[in-house]
Each structure stands twice: as C-alpha cells, then as structure tokens.
C-alpha cells in the first residue's frame, strides 16, 4: 500500500463512482455517441461489462487479498474487442445506467479496474476521460489507474502533464508516480528520476522503484510498440541510473532490496561499471551491499 503524505489522495470507497466533472461537454457528447455506435455493433461486449459491474460486490466479497483483480478480469473479458475502451468507460461516464456495487472495497476495485482495463486497450479515444479523472479525481487508485492509462497512450502533452504531477509534491504525486511506470517515454523516465532525488522513504520509495522497474523492464521494452525505438536506450539508462542512485542512498534494507530488484528488472548493461565505480570510497556496509548487488545481477537470468 502506498505510504502517503497527509495531503495525499487516499483509497476511498465512499463515493459511488469516478468523477469526470471536468470532462468537456463536447467531448462527453462525442464519447456518448461513440458508445452508442459501438454498442450497436457489439452488444455482447457491453453486456459483458454490465454483467461484471453487476457482479462487483459478489466478486469483491469472494476475493483473496486486498483487491479483487477487477482490471485483470475486465481486461481479459474484453481483450481484442474493437469497442472495448468505450464499453469499459460507459459505467464511468454514465454510472446511473448500471447497478453499481455497494461495498467500499468493491467500488474502489471497480472504478480503478474499469480505467485500468480501458487503459490496456491503448485507445486514444478514451484519453479525455483519463484527463478528466486526473484533473478532478481525488481517490488514490482511480488516479493511479488514470495516470497509467494516459501514460500508455504516451501523447506528448499528456506525458508532460504526468511528469509535472509526478514531480510536484501534492495530493496527486504518489498516485501519479505509481501509475507512471507504464509510460515508456524519456520525459516520464526523467520525471521519475527527479522524484528519486526527492528522498522518498518507506513504501513511497518502494512504489517509486516499482514504477522505475516497470518503465525500464527489459521484457516490456522488448514487446512490440512498448516505446518509441529511439527512446528505449535512454529510458533504460535513465531508470537504471535512478534506481542505482536510490540503491546507494537507500535509508534502509527494504528500500535497498527494492532498488536491487528494480536494477535486475531493468538489466542495464552499464550497471556493473556503476557498481565498480561506486565501490571506490564506499563505506564497508555499502561496499558489501554493492558486492551482493553485483553477484545478484550476474546471476540473474534475463533474456529480453
């Protein structure tokens, strides 16, 4: 769970649904029209989403662990369907049409899951909804999902917005940082690197490192269209350097271990050289940690 500052967004299941109050009316109307058209083409897809929404309370009640994986269910259930993003965002835009869950945890899971699954489609038509949530949202997981979804689209102006929100201390910072790992752009990597220099501690530091590792993941970057080809090397270098800096300056073992995990995921070919350079003049404790890191990276089985 994110460790948040007092002013940060929090998990909140009290409200019925995502806030899209700042969505431009014209954009809202266009989306409504698109939804109507998509429904006429693929009614079963919309029935599927409606069915899942109707089951949200029951699924949540039967979950194991902190969340029901609504995003995974919705993503799997709508995978490859042309109008998937529209079907998934209909409950966000027009919640009154749906039998919404009553329990707090089901609401959190459903709100975030719908946005998360829509984001997985990488459908740019949905971008206005994500922007509206980022602008007016206050709930942690909803904001995180919107940042992730917008990050996956990687539109330049949105990347700039996300970078600004990620680097600006405030109620949305931790949520945006948590979602930004899916935005595989250099500007986003630099934003996370800047956050890394802010001295985050505890779970906030671990969450930042997870975003760095998600962004710089060697396996992810090897998939088609994960990032612009011209930016991949810089993304990997920036995220790895930030993770390494956090490893060196880690205030405790937990953060240091998380940084080692991130460095293994990113698999920068330069990491061994950074380790060797850092050992010069390092304290005995840091030198030992660097040795362990070097051994770990050498052992890691990574075949992007």
């Amino acid at each position, binding site marked *: *769970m994110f460790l948040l500052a007092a002013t940060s967004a929090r*998990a909140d299941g009290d409200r019925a649904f995502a806030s899209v109050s700042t969505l431009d009316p014209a954009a809202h109307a266009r989306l409504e029209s698109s939804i109507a058209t998509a429904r006429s083409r693929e009614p*079963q897809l919309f*029935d*599927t989403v409606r*069915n*899942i929404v109707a*089951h949200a309370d029951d*699924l949540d009640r*039967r*979950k*194991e*662990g*902190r*969340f*029901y*994986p*609504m*995003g*995974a*269910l919705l*993503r799997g*259930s709508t*995978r490859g369907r042309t109008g998937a993003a529209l079907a998934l965002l209909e409950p966000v835009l027009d919640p009154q049409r749906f039998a919404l869950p009553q329990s707090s945890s089901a609401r959190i*899971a459903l709100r*975030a*899951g719908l946005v*998360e699954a829509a984001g*997985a489609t990488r459908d740019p038509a949905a971008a206005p909804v994500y922007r509206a949530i980022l602008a007016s949202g206050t709930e942690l*997981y909803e904001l*995180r999902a919107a940042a992730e979804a917008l990050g996956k689209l990687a539109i330049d102006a949105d990347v700039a917005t996300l970078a600004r929100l990620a680097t600006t201390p405030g109620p949305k910072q931790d949520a945006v940082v*948590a979602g930004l790992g*899916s935005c595989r752009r250099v500007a986003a990597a630099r934003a996370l690197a800047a956050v890394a220099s802010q001295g985050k501690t*505890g*779970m906030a530091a*671990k*969450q930042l490192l*997870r975003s760095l*590792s*998600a962004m710089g*993941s*060697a*396996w*992810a970057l090897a*998939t088609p*269209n*994960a990032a612009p080809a011209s930016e991949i090397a810089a993304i990997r270098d920036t995220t790895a350097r930030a993770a390494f800096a956090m490893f060196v300056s880690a205030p405790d073992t*937990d953060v240091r*271990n*998380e940084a*080692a*995990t991130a460095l*293994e*995921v990113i698999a920068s070919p330069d990491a061994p050289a950074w380790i060797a350079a850092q050992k010069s003049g390092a304290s005995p404790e840091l030198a030992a940690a660097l040795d*362990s890191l070097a051994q*770990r990276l050498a052992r*890691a*089985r*990574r*075949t992007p």
Partner: protein
Amino acid sequence: MKKLFLLPLLPACALLTPGCSQGDDTPPPSPTPVVDLRADNNRNGTIDWNDPTEDANEDTWDATHGAIFLANIDDDQSACPKTSSGGELLDDVDLAQCNDAQDTVINGDADLLDLAPLGTAPWAAAPDGTTGTLTVDDASAPYVHLFIQRNGALTFFDWQNGDVLSTDEVRAGATLAIEGTDVVRDPSVWNGYVTLTFTIDGTSDVVKMREAPIVTRHHLAKEEQVFVQAYSDDPGSIAMRSTLYSDMAGNGEGDGTTVGPVPSNVTEINGDADFGGTTPYDDQWTQDFFEVGYMSMPIAGGQQHVIDVYLRSANIYYTNPKNPLRDAGKVVFAQFRGPDAAGVQQFDMSSDPNMDSLNSFGNLETIPPYSLNGTNYPLGRLYRGSIPSFHPDASFEKMMEAQDVQPPVYIDTSWLVVGHVDETTSFVKVNSPRGWAMLVADPAMAKQMLQDQSTAGNGSTVMFAGKNWLDDNDVETPAQITIDQVLADTDVMSASDQAASAIDSELAILQPATGLTDSEIIHVPFLFESTQGYLDAYQPGMVNGLYYAEGTFAAPDPHGPLINGVDIFKDATEKALSAVGVNVVWVEDWDLYHRLTGEVHCGTNSKRGLLDGEQWWTSGY
C-alpha cells in the same frame, strides 16, 4: 455441566502420587524437614522420587531437562457454547472465552490428561502444626492453575487466597497438578516459564517449568487431515473437489463435474451452512482463516500428549470490537475446538486494514527442519511475508515469535496483490540429505518456454482453452489467448519481469537463511500480471498447491498450450518433480480460485502429525 474428577478414575496414580512412581522408590521417613517439590524434570512422564535426574537442576530449564505443562484450553467435554438463542454463531470475543482452563475444576477424564503432575515428598515426621506453602512467581500467577488431591479428587489449590498444604499433606506428601490458562502471547508480560516455590518453615525448594509453545506443522510431517470448503451447487467448488478427491483416491483427475466420495481423511467445511440466517463459513479460502499447530508434553512410555491448536487468522473485517474478525474463522471454535483441540485468536483492532491480507495463513507457512552452520532448526522455521512497512498484525506476530521454537524468516511480499508466501514458494519432501526441496515460481522459465514454442512455429497455439473469465448469465467471455499474444502483451511481460526479480529477492533471503543450494530449488513456470500496481499469477500458479500425501503434490491445472497433445507447463512441472520423487496430480481450480487470485493451496488446509522422535523440548529453543 462440570464435575470433580475422582481419584479412582486417575489413569495412572504413578503420575501424581508420591511413592507411587515407577518402581517402589518411596523415600524413607526423615527426622529433618523434607522440602522437596517435584515435577517431571527428566521428561519421562512420571514423578520419580529416587531418580536424581528428576531433582537435578530442577530450578532451571533447558533442552536437556525441565518440566512442561500445557495450556489447558481445549474443550474436553465439548461443553462450550457456540450459538446464540437465535442460532447465530456467538460473537468472536464470546466464542473464544470458553475452554477447560476458564474454570477451576477438572472437566472429566480427558481433562486430567491435560494437566502436568507435581508432587511434594512426604515428611512423615513433620511436627504438629506444620504447613507448607506453594507459590507461583508473580508474572505467571495469572496464567496457571494449581490443583491438589484432597478427599479423593483433584481440587483447586487457591494459594493466592491463603490455601496451604496441611500438616497431614506435608506428612503424606501432596499430589498436585498444574495447567496453563492461556498460551504465551506477549513475552514482556509472561514468557511461559513458571517458577514454583514450595516452602516449609523458611526452607524452600524451587522448580522451573515451561508451558508448551504452539508449534506449527511443516510438509515433512505426515498429513492426517485435509480441509476443503464445500459449496453444494457451485460449479467451481464441484470442479475443485471432483478433481482433488479423485486424485486422492488414485482415480486420476476426475471429470470435474461430479464429486465422488469424500475421502476419509478429508473434512469438508460447509460453505452453505446456515446459522440463524447467516452463512459465516461462506469463504472459499480454507487456507487463510485457520492454521493448525500443536502443543505437547511428555507422558509415560516415551509418548507425548498433544493438544491441536487451531489458530484463527487476525483478519479484521468489522469495527464491532466484540465481533470484528473474518467470519469463517469462527470455525476454529465452533467446529474444531473440542477434546484435545484448542482454538486461539489474537488480534489488534488498530492494525492497518491495508495490510490485512497478510494476516491470512497463506502467509504463514513453516520451512521444514534443517541445520545450518551449527544451528539446528529441528521444528523448522515460521515463514511469512513481513517487512517493517508492510506486515501482519503486530500482536499476532509477537505471539508467534513468543513461542520461541521456530525462529521466523520474513520476506517481502508487498509486491503481490494478495501478499502471501504460498503464491511463490512451497516445500516438498524429497530423498536427499536435506530431506526436502523448495518449489519456486519462475516467470523467466515460463517466458522462455513460450518463446521457444513461438520460435518453433507454435505461436498461434492457445492457452487457457475452454476457460472463461466470467460465465454467469450465459455471457461467455473466453479466456483463451495465443502464445504470441501473451508474449506481445507489454503489461504481462512487465509484470512477469518484475515478479521474476521480486522472487529473486525472496531467494536472496531464503537461500542464506536455509542454506538451500540452487540444485535444491525446483522451478515452477508461470507468468504474472498486474492489478492496481500489484502482481498476481496470470496463469494458475502451480507452486500454490497442496502437498497432501507422501510424495504427492496437488497443483492447479495450468491450462497451458498443448503441443502435440501435451500441456507444456504440466509436462515441465511433472518432470521436475518426478526427478526428486514427487508425483504431481492436477486439480481444477480456475473458476472459484484462480479467477479470484487464489489457487489450490489457498483453497485447502491440512493437519499433520509429528515426525518420528519430534520433541519440541529438545529443540534447544
């Protein structure tokens, strides 16, 4: 309801009566004061009056000597109330309050066996008016009861209110017994060690005893009972039980639609059970809401008397301080507590609800016994996901650590949606010097296997064939997906990459802690996915299975791609485990478990026996 237990029903007077121990070794009358308190210091189950090992160093306790007693918190007469007048199960606090130690009488024949014997040597020449006091140290006083044999029965010895040994009792020697009234929960309050002091005329004899700790079981111990939730009409429950029971009967996987006879060693918990209009057991995560441990003490004949301890998970679901816990955990008291079976709950209402999942017992496993660098762990070690910033209920963790015989190993599971150690690791008995091996989830292996198939031209082969994400209301949402689609899925690859590294971080703790070599680790291939920033098994997580019988591991059916008719993930796992002598059977858990982020282990539980020669008191802890 309760009755005094009369002397003629004593199972073995040798246990309790001076001069009635093994052999005729009654001490002769002494002209000088005899102040000799005895407990079973030499741990042979009897009070031996002429055996010097019974007396030597009795005021200390270590691996070689020192008497033991039990927390007598079972319900030997099955007398504890379970339901209200309306038929609902009692509130959590009320349910837990009842047990045999909550009164000061002996609750039947079986209850007597739960008490540890004590005795004072006779001083036949004691002058008229001589009395003896028997006291307990201040810290222990609230946690033990003493009993004394009077008028043919063991009765409460109320030493705190002036009860003393009479002249006749001093002269004849007293037969006494001790019970604990609770388990050790917080060593800063009481650590389970009791100092008993017997005094006559300013001369004292001191005996130190220890309350038996709760010991959790591990996979080397023979399974005695398997528990599984049963929903009569749920297709997912039927599929799970159909395949599991058929496997257990040696009949293959079963058809997944018909539940055969329930094996004799299976206890079904009725998920549909109605208590006054409520269904508290409607919770399919059988692994999570209870854990079975034991406590034991030596008895005659080289045996030990065992009380099973059913621990209830500290999952806090509600704000009502009288009834805050996960409903299904009531089964610990309402169904399992009984003769030689105790229930224990421990929780802190102020625990962080965001970390609540860590309190489930899929996140409390036991690493089997081993030795490393001169340190022995003969009872194994507790194994949990817990880091300073993300941990289970601190009061429960303190209670488990206070048992002190299974030093814990903690890893970071905060990256998982569910956060349980059973999602990535398990243990199986193998024929090797160590005697066991560890199964570990291996996303890198899974990815490589899929890449190999893609390279071989099988990228269009589907996995998850015939499975659905949600199939209610006749709305089918097929889950099947091709190998190439999976490999091209940036999100699944990113999550699996992160999982692979996080699991390496787990190994970076586990291998130094256990000495496990790479060759003692069995890699189990499956990928991960992300939800709300946390990870869970994308494919049925085959490591998350039940080691239910000697050499048999019941794993979730992975529904992997069929290449030449062979599921490549099943095949790889079967080969890896058969190489160490473990047979894999496959269980269908997709609908009720995998889709809800759990697997076979999460949906089952087990009670195991003790290893041959297992004696916690010789563990050195």
